[in-house]
């Protein structure tokens, strides 16, 4: 029932859990043995590799913008290249690229019997559960950058504004399919209740 929506190697190679920032304490890891959640890593679906590419491209673009500003500064003042800005751009690339890569890969979701689980984050980890019966709308949105990378975001809304369940970086077709599935389940639950 659980389909992996990731594409090829990227989805399979994704690290099971980020370990650099401390021990594994996800509720789902510890629930592995006898908890209500079946927690094989393969059960989770992941966004496509395009998400990582998009985030890294964004970081790269911001580094380019910083360098451009530095270059313009040299033009107008006929001064030497401002090394602080160049350093900033370099830091942006050196630290930012791997970090956003890991962050993009940290997204994953699991369609369970009665609710949807979404997990994300490297430094700040978040796990959300949205019961299908509580979903009010499910929307698929794609901003200009996402469209450039042929990606879409599935956003879930409940009656609470605090619900932050969204799944970015999905292929538009798969996003559409997921939306259909979620809406169907939401309706089924609304009828059953």
């Amino acid at each position, binding site marked *: 029932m659980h389909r992996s929506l990731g594409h090829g190697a990227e989805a399979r190679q994704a690290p099971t859990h980020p370990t650099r920032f401390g021990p594994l*304490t996800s509720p789902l890891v510890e629930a592995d043995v006898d908890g*209500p959640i079946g927690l094989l890593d393969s059960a989770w679906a992941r966004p496509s590799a395009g998400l990582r590419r998009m985030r890294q491209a964004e970081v790269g673009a911001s580094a380019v913008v910083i360098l451009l500003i530095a270059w313009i500064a040299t033009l107008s003042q006929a001064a030497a290249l401002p090394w602080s800005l160049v350093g900033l751009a370099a830091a942006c690339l050196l630290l930012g690229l791997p970090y956003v890569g890991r962050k993009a890969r940290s997204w994953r979701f699991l369609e369970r019997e009665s609710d949807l689980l979404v997990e994300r984050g490297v430094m700040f*980890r*978040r796990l959300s559960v949205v*019961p299908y019966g509580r979903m009010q709308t499910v929307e698929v949105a794609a901003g200009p950058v996402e469209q450039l990378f042929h990606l879409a975001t599935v956003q879930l809304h*409940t*009656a*609470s504004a*605090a*619900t932050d369940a969204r799944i970015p970086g999905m292929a538009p077709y798969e996003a559409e399919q997921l939306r259909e599935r979620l809406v169907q389940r939401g309706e089924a639950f609304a009828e059953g209740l």
Partner: protein
Amino acid sequence: MTTGNADLSPNAPHLPATRPDVDGTWHHLHPLSPVVQLGRGLPGLVIVLALPILGHRGGGTSGDWSDVALIVLAGAAGLVSWWVTRWRLERGVLRVDTGLVRRRVTQLPLARIQSVDIVRPGTARIFGLAELRVRSGGSHSGDARLAYLSSERAEEVRELLLRLASGSTAVLRPGSAELTLARASSVRLLVAIPLRARTLAPALMVALVAGGDWASRLGSPSARPFTSTLLTALAVAIVLTAIAVFRQYTAQFGYEVSETADGLLLRGGVIGTVTETLSHRRVQALRVVEPCLWRPFGWAQLVADVAGGQRRKDEDRAVSGRQRILVPVAPRGEVLALAARLAGGPLPSGTAPPPAARLKAPLSYPMLRGALADGFAVASIGRLRRLTTVVPLARVQSIRWTQGPVQRRLGLATVHLDAVGRRGSGLTLRDRSSGEANRLFQELPDLCQRALRADQVKQSAGHRGIRPDPPHPPDMLDS
């Protein structure tokens, strides 16, 4: 809650008193409505009129005619608005037509009515009028206002609507089977209101600025502690605070909450009075607020988070928005007892997070508590003031587990239960041990679903509300 037996409806004198309005004839609002509307707009009108007068104090009489014209215009507009507004009960629908140029028709299915409230602004009370506000589930576009009806008629229509909405043929008199749960003490209210940061804020701000100003001139030889600027600032601060206190005091004076078959009945106010019914289903969360300066006295406030629309511009603060004060101020024990009664079980005092959390949240650690009870969750947070939130599990919309880098090092995690409404309207079990947080996160989805099902079974069985049993005398009033 006294309702005359005589048929007070002027438009349907031929009908028996029990069912005055089901015939579907059109009704107008009370003829004095435009006067009240004009009265409510009086402050604005006075300002508009006063401006030119102040401007040409020594000048001629050029302003006089336009002033008169303005008043006539405002009066005429009110009259037209009254003339084109009419309402009637159609088959299962309350219909309100209004607007001359842009005709607006509000059709409110009676089955979807969630509450019928009576609001009496000060000007309306002078003429013995009241506004009837009918709320339906969902967005605020589904609300209907009847402003204004005579007080007796408003009571009558309210009862009729509630009776039709509940679908029962039995006469449901809100006044008949009601049980007062809490009543605000006027003396305690007078002490408590100025002791809130919200009221004190303007005074504190001015005092701070003035103090800083004085301190900066300390070095100079001509330093006097009270300059005219400082005195003016202090006077402004005192006036602002006094206004804030007065407004809150008059709104919360005589405030009482009682329990009826429809849910909770809130009443209170001096100048403008409010009568509102709050069905148990609309309560999404209960909050016990203990402001910093109240804690030495052991006082607390009980607030209910309410599902429903956003506040409209023309609505009074008292009956709009997403929060309702249930108890303005009362001893903490009483407030907690009432919260427990509404939640449907004793409130557990909760356990503190592990000591490691003290490193991450040194200030709020003493306040942090959390517990899961039968059918609801309780959590306290806060630094200076304590905020205890009770959320029925049947109302939880989603559950979140979060962990930051510091929390990970300390073996902590936070679990949020999201309730209906804006961000932060739910409950936060902050900095629990990661084991506990994990267990909570695994168990809560099931618990919430079970609670929801139980709630729905109860509902279909005819109970209205989140409590399994009908109203019984409160134990808190015994002691």
